């Protein structure tokens, strides 16, 4: 009997020992934080606001035919810089950046802010979300918004409905009359706001009045989408001008951070340091994670012929003696920004003739370089305001863009003189923007330009400052150049700022240059249907060619962009959008993609945005 008791006791002990749920460990990773705070969440979100601008610009600068590479591959990891074979590309960072890094962090920041009663955090989060939404929908078109984060397969909202939401959200964030839910005053006047300092918000140190300017600016950009394809009416143009002016006034009011002209435009200033502490466009090529971000790869990039010849006025690359800055004596009217955006490099060391010593070498897009050429024969691109240094800045919006927005609206209102004046002013300060960076890297007590002699041609004995001033003045005041002179004398001289002969092309080509390394560069190209001499897509009543010299890239992926198209069709068949991520959207939201016709369909890439459809097709940006 004792044995039986012992057995029973052993069994009881055994059963008790293993017990039940209570013995199970808490299933939580001790090395991971499981909550976040507003004060620690905001700096991450603000950083991502600069990153999302960079993400778009890094694609767009190739898609806008501004930069290209030495290769001529039809396929590859970077379709946006090669043959436009997007469908096999693995993840586009912009999608993830909007929905996850900005979307989820912003969503949780808003929730935390509401629970904390500190609405200033929520305000900043909403402005950034608005900006990110605009960038993302203008790259992808339809996308989840109203049902985002509610399931693994959220419905895709139409781009028109997203535009409707964005315009309303902009009104809410600026307390515009008629706003459905004015939030600016509520956020500013919230008594329980916690202090936000520069360590959390290095753009504005928590100053909501300046963030409000970004909401105005985004709205101006959205309204501009009416031109030229949706609504060219004077009323709309006037509204665009007024909205842009509100942004300008907002940023120029109060303590202007970056001087009287640039005012307090939103800049994410980098300090430089290690990895992401460096500016995204800088030579340190920071990358957040290999799988979620792309480095800038300017080390492998080459300026395009379109950008160099047609926009910046470099001519005759076969004769280095005839290259250089504007020179009244010989009439070559090149853009002063050439020396601020590029560091010229000589050709092959072994070259025995002048033609191989070209210093500002460039290529047609995706035409490929000869096998004897090296990257080092092409200009260095780590220059200018955004790419020059690790401590450069990424602008969330530029003052020049606001001026160009107004100029474009004035142009369509028929006021070409005002358009020309605004464009000239914007150009002047865009030159200054890059010059500021140049001078920061090459400081001079006199405040003048200090250009290394080996980078400045033709070499002169005048002081650099005087020469620079003369160059800039000549470039901006070039309306006196006679249009009738033969091309052999004036090269491809542009009549940029001649108010009496001002053209849409003059305006948009200058905006194109000013939007160097900005997402908007590609948007403008699409808005104007890649209008060029080859496709003959004229804009407006005058059927003006907006981007003369622009041409389709060479070696486009044959199956998508060549086969089955006539020559005329090819010239009008350009990439209009990114495809949805094949790794996630095609798997988990295929039904939505099929509904849109976007599933594994390369023709989806050709479908224009609602603001890039042919004139007359759509009467409203927000109507379905």
């Amino acid at each position, binding site marked *: 009997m004792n044995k039986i008791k012992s057995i029973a006791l052993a069994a009881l002990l055994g059963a008790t020992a293993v*017990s039940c749920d209570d013995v*199970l460990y808490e299933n939580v990773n001790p090395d991971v934080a499981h909550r976040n705070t507003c004060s620690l*969440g905001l700096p991450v979100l603000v950083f991502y606001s600069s990153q999302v601008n960079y993400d778009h610009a890094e694609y767009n600068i190739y898609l806008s035919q501004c930069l290209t590479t030495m290769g001529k591959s039809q396929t590859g990891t970077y379709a946006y810089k090669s043959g436009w074979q997007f469908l096999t590309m693995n993840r586009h960072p912009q999608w993830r950046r909007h929905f*996850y*890094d900005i979307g989820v962090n912003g969503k949780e920041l808003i929730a935390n802010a509401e629970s904390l009663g500190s609405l200033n955090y929520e305000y900043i989060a909403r402005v950034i979300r608005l900006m990110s939404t605009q960038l993302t929908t203008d790259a992808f078109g339809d996308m989840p918004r109203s049902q985002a984060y509610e399931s693994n*397969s959220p419905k895709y909202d139409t781009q028109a409905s997203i535009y409707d939401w964005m315009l309303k959200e902009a009104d809410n964030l600026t307390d515009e009359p008629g706003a459905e839910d004015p939030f600016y005053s509520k956020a500013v006047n919230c008594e329980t706001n916690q202090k936000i300092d520069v360590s959390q918000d290095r753009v504005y140190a928590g100053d909501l009045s300046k963030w409000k300017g970004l909401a105005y600016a985004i709205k101006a950009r959205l309204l501009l989408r009416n031109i030229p394809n949706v609504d060219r009416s004077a009323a709309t143009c006037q509204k665009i001008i007024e909205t842009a002016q509100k942004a300008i006034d907002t940023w120029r009011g109060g303590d202007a951070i970056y001087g009287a002209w640039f005012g307090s435009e939103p800049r994410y200033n980098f300090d430089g340091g290690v990895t992401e502490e460096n500016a995204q466009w800088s030579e340190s090529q920071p990358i957040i994670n290999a799988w979620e971000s792309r480095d800038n790869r300017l080390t492998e990039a080459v300026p395009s012929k379109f950008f160099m010849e047609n926009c910046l006025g470099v001519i005759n690359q076969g004769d280095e003696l005839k290259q250089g800055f504007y020179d009244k004596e010989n009439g070559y009217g090149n853009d002063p920004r050439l020396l601020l955006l590029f560091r010229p490099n000589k050709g092959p060391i072994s070259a025995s003739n002048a033609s191989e010593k070209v210093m500002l070498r460039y290529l047609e897009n995706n035409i490929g370089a000869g096998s004897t050429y090296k990257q080092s024969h092409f200009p260095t691109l780590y220059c200018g305001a955004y790419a020059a240094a690790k401590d450069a800045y990424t602008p969330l919006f530029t003052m020049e863009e606001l001026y160009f927005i107004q100029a474009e609206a004035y142009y369509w209102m028929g006021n070409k003189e005002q358009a020309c004046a605004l464009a000239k002013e914007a150009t002047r300060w865009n030159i200054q923007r890059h010059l500021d960076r140049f001078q920061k890297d090459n400081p001079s007590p006199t405040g003048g330009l200090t250009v290394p002699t080996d980078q400045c041609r033709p070499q002169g004995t005048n002081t650099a400052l005087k020469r620079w001033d003369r160059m800039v003045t000549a470039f901006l005041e070039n309306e006196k150049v006679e249009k009738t002179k033969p091309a052999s004398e004036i090269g491809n001289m542009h009549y940029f700022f001649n108010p009496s002969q001002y053209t849409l092309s003059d305006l948009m080509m200058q905006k194109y240059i000013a939007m160097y390394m900005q997402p908007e560069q590609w948007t403008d190209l699409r808005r104007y249907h890649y209008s060029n001499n080859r496709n003959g897509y004229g804009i407006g009543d005058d059927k003006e060619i907006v981007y003369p010299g622009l041409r389709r890239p060479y070696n486009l992926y044959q*199956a998508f962009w060549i086969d089955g198209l006539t020559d005329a069709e090819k010239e009008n068949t350009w990439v209009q959008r990114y495809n949805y991520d094949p790794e996630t959207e095609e798997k988990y939201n295929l039904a939505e993609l099929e509904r849109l016709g976007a599933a594994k369909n390369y023709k989806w890439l050709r479908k224009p945005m609602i603001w890039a459809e042919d004139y007359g097709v759509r009467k409203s940006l927000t109507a379905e």
Partner: protein
Amino acid sequence: MKKQLFLLLFSLITIMAQARVVTGTVYDSDGEPALGASVSLKGAKTGVATDFDGKYSINVPNDNAVLTFSMVGHKTVFETVGSRTVIDVNLPANAEVLEAVVVTAMGQSQAKSKLNFGVQELKSDEVLAGQSANFVNSLQGKVAGVRVSTSGGSPNSASQIVIRAISSINNAQSNEPLFVIDGMPIRGGGSSIGDINPSDIETMSVLKGAAASALYGQEGANGVIIITTKSGKEGKVNVAVNGGWEISNTLNLPSLQKEYIGGANGFYVANSSGGWGPKMNSDDVYYDNVGNFLGTGFMQKYDISLSGGNDKYSAYASANFMDNEGVVPKDYKKRMGVFVKGEFTPSKAMKIMLSANFIDSKSRGFGNSMSTIYGWSINRDMADYRLENGLPNWGNRYDDWDILTNSQRVGATLSPYYSRYMDKSRTESSRVIINTSIQWEPIKNLTITGKFNYDKGWSSYESSTVPRFTTSGKEFIFDPVYDEEGNQIGTEFPSAIKQAYDERMGTYTFQPSRSERATAQLLGNYYWKINDNFNLNFFVGGEYSETKSYSAGLGGIHYVLDGDFYSLNNCDNEYLKYGSGDYNVYLNHAKRNKFGYFGEMRFDYRNVIQLSVTGRLDGSSTLKQMTSTYFYPSFTGGIIFSELLGIGSSNGVFNYGKIRGNWAKVGKDAPANQFSDNYKQWSTFPDKGFGVNPTISKAITLEPEMTKSWEIGADLRFFRNRTRLDVAYYNTSVDNQIVTVRVSPASGTILQTRNEGCIENKGLELTLNQDILSTKDFSWTATLNFSYNRGKVVSLPENVALIQGGQYGDIFTVAYVGESTTGLAGIDYERNAAGDVIIDENGLPKVSPVKQTYIGNREPDCLLGLGSTFTWKDLSLSFLLDGRIGGDVANITGRSLYSNGQNALLVPYRNRKVVFKGVVDNGDGTYRPNTTPVILDQTTFNNYIYNVSSNFIEDGSYLRMSYVTLAYDFSNLMKRLGSSNPIKGLKCSLTGRNLFLLTKYTGADPQVMPSASNGTGSMGIDNYSVPSLRSFNFNVNVTF
């Protein structure tokens, strides 16, 4: 005539007098009546079998007749009839025959004839056969349905073993079987189990199906490999000493060209590698860089064991040492181990066992790093790697250093020799496995067992690299410094490459980790003999186990102090604060635990019919936020039909037949920590802060993964057991697959763990053992293993086509819906309905825009293993042929060699006109064969061949001479030397491994993987592993 009649009558009477019936009872080794034992006249072709009570009746011709008694698992007994009419026989157990008692789930031992599921057992000598450094590697071909993959020929190569097929397509879930030593589960899979000294293994049982391993729960869902270690035997102390020495070299290499130097498009380009340049000039020197780099490997291993005991105590102790130097310079593994096991039997009712295994290893691996070696230009000597000052000789790779940019210089490719000989890295690991059990039999037929296992390992990886450049940075182009007037006044180090430069000025990393597992079990077993016909066995138990681990890392860059002070304390402080990159600081903990209650009831009817039912209730911490407990049952049944039907005993062809079947369900929990929000500190962002962590998966809801399986099988024996055939057909489905997938960020997560879809495995296993010849001095036996499996993804959520595993460029290992669980996806050409590649009018193939087309199945059509042993007196010769039919391999290595112009297979075609095989669209729905030639230059190759993944999927069929062993046993000679000779046994063997490999695969070896990985796995991916080896091993075994 009368005399003749008399003689005839006398003879008949005599015959009648001697011919008679003999009866009796045959008992098995347990003393139980033996059912189905064979009784026959020696030399006769027919005989009888014993009935349910072990009784038999047989006619014998005369008193000189000899009866042969045999039964599965027992030694054959011969009895001369003499004058007896009743002969009872006790058949002793035969531990050497295949059908011996095998160890099954939870340490239970059963006669194989009573098992109703797939199990295959290997004895000690079978485990050792082949003499692999990791005995797991030589299981391929020895056991039907077992598939072993290795990551190449390095001593540190990973090994992965899969029984039948994978059950989880989740990258976070292992598909390797559970390894059990002396009844207790231990950590790790095929790689870590290889650290066990194979000489300590007594038997190894492979439990294949879910029913076989149902009692083990989720960890047994992929099968179980049960290892029983040797024990001391009662009697005199035995001492055994083994020594083995082995040399090896590469079996195959990818075919590399020997004509072209680096460049592009057939032209010389400075600083190029690979072979896309022009042909070598007559004054160029050819260097066999690959051949020179891969040398001869040498392994030596020694072990000694002592064992002995008496009726109360027994003990076994062993020590072993192995030093394995690979074919790659400084690629080595040294291992030593000590194993002790003691058993104490204080009374008839109690038995106590305690064992401890300590393993210590030091190693330096090479990884999948053959890329640089294969790509080195053939006109440059990779071995000339170092200058006199100790810095790299960049000139052996870059013939024009001056034209490199700073970025190119800082990222310049180093000769692999340099890092092998100049840098240091070492992994040191220690492991302790302690097993203890107390077995108590308080009343007759009731056994209570308590077991405890503790398996703990420590490991540390420490590495340092020496500076690649001078401290002055003179290898770089300095930036000019200007004065205020624009005049250059000096130069400064290029700031843009500062960090990259610092990372090449010396690095140090230290990564310690620890992992432990503790398991406790309480088991009860009660045997109830209801009557002579019916037996019941009850088995119940409870189990608790927990695993804990941590891993940490410290790293730094740029040694401040010159010289040989390679320490973290010599790294630049500026970088120590940054927690990212390769030289970061991290600390990760992991822990999980679970409990289980389980039970089994076995029913036996006269040893002819066996039925069993099991059930297990598991609780897992990984599902604590959900329903953490889950239950699953299994049922098995088997009938020895040859006895029920009375067939098999009356003829010499078929003498035993059993059919068996089972159905089982096994649950499997989830990866740990899936249910909470995760934020990380972005310490590298300008203003730091915390944000959502995109690298950690999150689950919304999860259920346990459930494996359902049924299996039927048969055990058939012919020609008095000389031919033994075991066949099994199984069908397994796994529902609620737990997978971690990359979902749309619009869902709010990047990685999400969820239940998705169902997979199915169907397969057949066949094992045929044949005693071909057996004479006094000569015997010849053979074993054939055959198996196939068809793994299929039955369903995934709507619109989801695949679950992705690893990525190798644009080739993905995938589980593809409607296709294989171990498939391949990538880019293919556009094809017409007939599958022909569509070619355009210019003669170039059209590349499909679809990114993840299903392009291959890594699962073999079937696996084959043929082993045979010839024994003549004391000489024996044995071999194992291992092969497979089918099983695609993604030749990533070969693809890359094509891309860089080094592949010899490209030479006949490069820069020549070729016609792509395919068809041209006539535009009316018909196609014509392509006849338009194109020039296959580098650009064309890269755009139209290299870019298409399907071009690099190859058939992985092969036939391999896994090993051949010639052995001579001098033991008889030792005996003849007399009792004064201390040597009782001496055996020498010579083994050749991988003697040949027949395959159409163009890479080095189709049986390869880059690393052991979970989910759909990486088997069938050839990605720059160290090539597999051919080796020759000499082994001496001495017993005292």
